[in-house]
């Protein structure tokens, strides 16, 4: 299957920090085009492209920008969310290491469009080796006049600074990320107000995922119509997929939205290694766990389908049948119990109780009533948690309960006395 490389257009093709090589492949042309347009026109182009956020939530990018553009403030910020903590996704690492100049270009375009002069990249602490690359890219862009004061004689100033994470999954959530940049514990804020109104240092702030931003220059050079012609009507453009787990061929691949999950596993990933296909976790650690009969689906942001599929951040983690599905679910639920920030009760207590109930079932001491409790607790967490971490953390467990019901029931029936 042929990849369609938009976000990955320069990765592996150039010296990542060479402005010359970057420009030879059309680098900074998107920025030039933006600067020749009015900020409002830039946003209209982004809105017309129908691009939606690639970090998991899928919010329309143009609308987010337009909201910040409409705010009156003495300072606005562009924040790049490079806190890629979702298990089974590492596309942003590949993008930043292979084409950091595109990220600078994209953030500058965003700044111009919304009227922000400061950009920050919040990079997770687990990628320490990317700091020098990004620092070099910032310097190279500054030295060649594409970043800094009076960019390309337009009178527009824009700077980009790097901020380090400290090893906390929750900081990928936009308000927790803001708290962390401000030098506090990364605990999520109540929303609303949204960061577009009251964000970093209480100023209007655009927060976009790395992959989202990487598409922006291509939209400006190729045009919204071209971008919309790729993908599906729900989700325009391409998506990066992290193929990992028990696959013969793993890696980061870019395909138009709507690509078939089966094709990703058996064509791109060259099939399952070490056994037959047992399950796929889709989207990342907080994504649903599907069984082998559920993979005939096209992947787009809002594809709800019959199996509750969510694209999330594009992780495709394949699990072979040498594994016990309850062990995999336990591993995933341990993750959320570890990573809950502890601010709100449904998530702080809920993640631990879900894990406790699951372990009880797994050890053969479970009762049918435990399943009911699990489902009720999951519902409360989904409805009442403060942020996406708590709201989505029951998804792996609840989807596994549904899609691998037989396994759960046989443990309950086989090993414990029926009341």
């Amino acid at each position: 299957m042929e990849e369609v490389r938009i976000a990955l257009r320069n990765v592996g093709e150039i010296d990542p920090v060479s402005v010359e090589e970057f420009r030879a492949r059309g680098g900074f042309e998107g920025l030039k085009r933006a600067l020749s347009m009015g900020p409002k026109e830039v946003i209209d182009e982004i809105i017309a492209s129908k691009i939606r956020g690639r970090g998991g939530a899928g919010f329309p990018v143009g609308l987010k920008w337009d909201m910040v553009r409409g705010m009156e403030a003495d300072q606005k910020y562009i924040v790049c969310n490079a806190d890629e903590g979702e298990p089974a996704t590492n596309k942003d690492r590949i993008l930043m290491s292979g084409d950091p100049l595109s990220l600078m270009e994209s953030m500058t375009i965003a700044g111009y469009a919304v009227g922000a002069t400061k950009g920050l990249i919040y990079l997770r602490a687990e990628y320490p080796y990317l700091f020098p690359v990004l620092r070099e890219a910032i310097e190279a862009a500054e030295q060649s006049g594409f970043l800094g004061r009076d960019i390309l004689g337009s009178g527009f100033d824009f700077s980009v600074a790097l901020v380090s994470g400290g090893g906390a999954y929750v900081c990928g959530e936009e308000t927790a990320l803001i708290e962390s940049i401000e030098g506090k514990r990364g605990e999520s804020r109540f929303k609303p107000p949204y960061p577009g109104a009251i964000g970093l240092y209480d100023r209007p702030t655009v927060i976009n995922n790395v992959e989202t931003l990487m598409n922006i220059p291509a939209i400006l050079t190729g045009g919204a119509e071209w971008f919309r012609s790729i993908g599906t009507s729900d989700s325009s453009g391409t998506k990066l997929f992290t193929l990992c787990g028990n696959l013969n061929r793993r890696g980061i691949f870019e395909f138009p939205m709507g690509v078939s999950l089966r094709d990703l596993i058996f064509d791109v990933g060259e099939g399952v290694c070490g056994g037959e296909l047992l399950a796929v976790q889709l989207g990342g650690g907080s994504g649903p766990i599907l069984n082998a009969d559920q993979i005939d689906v096209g992947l787009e942001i809002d594809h709800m389908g019959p199996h509750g599929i969510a694209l999330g951040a594009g992780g495709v983690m394949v699990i072979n049948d040498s594994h016990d599905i309850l062990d995999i679910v336990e591993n995933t639920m341990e993750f959320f119990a570890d990573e809950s920030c502890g601010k709100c009760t449904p998530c702080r207590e809920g993640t631990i109780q879900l894990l406790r109930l699951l372990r009880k079932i797994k050890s053969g001491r479970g009762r049918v009533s435990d399943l009911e409790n699990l489902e009720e607790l999951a519902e409360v967490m989904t409805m009442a948690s403060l942020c996406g971490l708590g709201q989505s953390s029951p998804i792996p467990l609840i989807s596994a309960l549904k899609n691998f019901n037989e396994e759960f029931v046989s443990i309950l029936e086989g090993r414990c006395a029926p009341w």
Partner: protein
Amino acid sequence: MRQLSRETIDQLQRLAAVYKETNERLMEVLLEMQKLTDNCFDRETLGVVSDAMGIPESKMYDYITFYSRFSTEKRGKYIIRMCKSAPCHVCGAREVARSICDYLEVEPGDTTDDGLFTVEFCECIGLCESSPSVMINDETYSDLTPDKIRGILDYYRKEVSP
């Protein structure tokens, strides 16, 4: 109790001054500081740093204990972070972790007697396409097997820290 050397205290105070110039980049400064103090902020270090930065000790503790990169207990020169998230887990991370602990004769969370290694479990380090993976300080090691990781540990013992 460990006594910080005059030199270390000076270095910490210099870094604190960097932070106080702008009151930004707290994380970066603290991560730098931690490299000078046995990879930890124990009570003594917290006191020194909190004075130098003008941040109450309680607030420093609150911050340090939130982020997994920090520790309040002394750690080794090399921190081995063993990823236990699902993409590593399904590709044999448990066996790799067992191999590391057996070889170094420690349990997860412990530091070797010679103070060279601390072994920790961690969540996803973003090397899913080549799992199982670990990080040793800022270096990444992927596609690991129980044998391969022993070779890497030997390298650290003999070559990096002879």
